[in-house]
């Protein structure tokens, strides 16, 4: 009979005892894999956001609190639109790319979307030259020479650049989800709040709330909604040097009644959660090692004690100490492999399904974590089983058989 057959028969005869040890390994690996999977994608999302929006600043009503950059304007509080020209005509450097927004809920094809009014740069950028001849001494700002060439602007860059150069009163740009759901495409017409619009572009998918937006001229949206000359937020596409030089403080001084927020501040909450997840995953690794290892060690010791006569008989019939050692370690390895595999599968399922709810980001399976899960569970199982297995291998068959 092969070692494999002996081990499998023994497992099948003493299933319930092994189950407790398996559960300890399985639960620990599941938790660690789920946490590591979710925190990886959460960290990547924050990095991506900081990379693409890191120099951006949001100007919001004082009473607004916010968790997500892309939905910064989705609230009912407002600030005066005059803040835009106040910034443009001021001597604050680094505010060349402004994007004021006003949001109104609308219905299209029986689905709810957000009509977002945006102000094209052409409406206010010329006024930056109203600061007088003193502006010749200013450093060059961002995007100050955009739109000078004859080439027409690619409107689809709105989602990346966050500003648009020109937009007529009756033109709209629609998000990817809006287009997919309603079947409306570029060149089509649509009606919003009783006004007809031309769709001049369908924006590329971003995976953010922008996919469910319809963008139109700010002043048109203000008129249709009857809200007056107000906006929900002003996005400032900044430069890192201006941020470091105190852009936020300058804006705070110029607009004391508004709240100025950087992307880093918004990301701070998510960074804190990521750090907490990292610590929790370390704690769970500790738990696996201690609790799981102790459970397996306890199980193996009691298993060896129970099987003294069986092991003694095997050795009397010619089994060598190393064969006994391998038999017990093989059982531990099986426990580790099965625990690791099932823990990885369950942890991944939990991460993919629950991750978007907890972390607000899409989570995908990570095959590289399988090796990690197997490695950890095997290590714990083998380490915990080594001394009991050695003890069994050192049993004297004569003493064992005396007890028969």
């Amino acid at each position, binding site marked *: 009979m092969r070692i494999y057959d002996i081990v499998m028969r023994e497992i099948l005869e003493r299933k319930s005892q092994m189950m407790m040890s398996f559960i300890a390994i399985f639960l620990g690996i599941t938790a660690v894999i789920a946490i590591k999977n979710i925190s990886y994608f959460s960290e990547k999302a924050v990095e991506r956001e900081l990379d693409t929006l890191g120099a951006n600043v949001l100007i919001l009503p004082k009473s607004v609190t916010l968790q997500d950059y892309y939905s910064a304007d989705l609230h009912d509080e407002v600030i005066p639109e005059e803040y835009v020209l106040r910034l443009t005509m001021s001597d604050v450097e680094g505010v060349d790319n402004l994007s004021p927004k006003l949001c109104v809920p609308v219905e299209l094809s029986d689905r709810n979307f957000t009509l977002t009014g945006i102000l094209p740069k052409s409406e206010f950028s010329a*006024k930056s030259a109203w600061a*007088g001849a003193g502006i010749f001494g200013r450093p060059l*700002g961002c995007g100050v020479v955009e739109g000078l060439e004859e080439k027409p602007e690619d409107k689809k860059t709105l989602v990346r650049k966050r500003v648009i150069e020109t937009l007529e009163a009756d033109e709209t740009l629609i998000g990817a989800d809006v287009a997919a759901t309603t079947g409306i495409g570029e060149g089509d017409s649509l009606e919003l709040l009783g006004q007809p619009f031309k769709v001049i572009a369908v924006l590329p998918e971003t995976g953010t709330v922008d996919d469910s937006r319809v963008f139109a001229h700010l002043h048109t949206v203000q008129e249709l909604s009857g809200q007056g000359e107000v906006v929900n937020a002003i996005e400032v596409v900044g430069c890192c040097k201006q941020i470091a030089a105190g852009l936020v403080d300058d804006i705070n001084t110029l607009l004391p009644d508004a709240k100025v927020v950087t992307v880093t501040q918004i990301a701070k909450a998510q960074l804190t959660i990521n750090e907490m997840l990292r610590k929790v995953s370390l704690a769970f690794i500790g738990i696996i090692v201690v609790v799981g290892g102790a459970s397996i060690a306890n199980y193996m010791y009691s298993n060896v004690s129970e099987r003294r006569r069986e092991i003694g008989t095997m050795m009397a019939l010619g089994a060598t100490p190393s064969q006994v050692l391998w038999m017990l370690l093989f059982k531990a390895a099986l426990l580790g492999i099965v625990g690791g595999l099932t823990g990885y599968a369950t942890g991944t399922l939990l991460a993919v399904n629950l991750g978007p709810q907890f972390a607000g980001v899409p989570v995908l399976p990570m095959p590289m974590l399988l090796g990690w899960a197997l490695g950890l569970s095997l290590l714990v199982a083998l380490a915990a089983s080594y001394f009991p297995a050695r003890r069994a291998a050192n049993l004297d068959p004569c003493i064992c058989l005396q007890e028969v």
Partner: protein
Amino acid sequence: MLVSHIRVGDPAHQDLVKKYGVSRAPMPLVLAVAPNGAVTTAIMHPIDDKKLAAAIVSPASADCLKGMQDGKIVFVCVHPQRTTREEDALHGVHEFAADENYREATRIISVDPADPQEGQFLKQLKIDPRTNSPVTVMVAPSGGMLGKYEGVTSKAEFVKALTTSKSSCCPGGKCGPGGCCPKK
């Protein structure tokens, strides 16, 4: 000098309000307008004598501001009367302005550095009025300087200045238009 009081809510003043796009501007606001239609300055509250004095600008400064406010790249060509290199200095400027990509986006202004009226303007452009060589300054619509060139100019260097300013965001920095500095 003519002083006009405008009420943004008054229907009789709507043409002016619309012309200058001030219906949503912070109030009170003082706009100083040069004879060529350029807004030389917009003064927000508090209004003081110093700001009002700064609103009076030279003819070349007004022309430059008009070009900028029309969204053009302005070439300020400073040529001493005694120079013989004026044609060489203007060569690159004329070549750039003749390019179909930039024709509609270019404005050229000539300034005599010896003209005492232009002293303040030259000071703001950091040009010595005693210069013997022609100097060409390329100014973006926002007022930032895209480049300053002494002597002979070429279209290639103007195009390079324009391209460089489009690809980098921060003055002297490497930030892209998408945000902060790219990771190394």
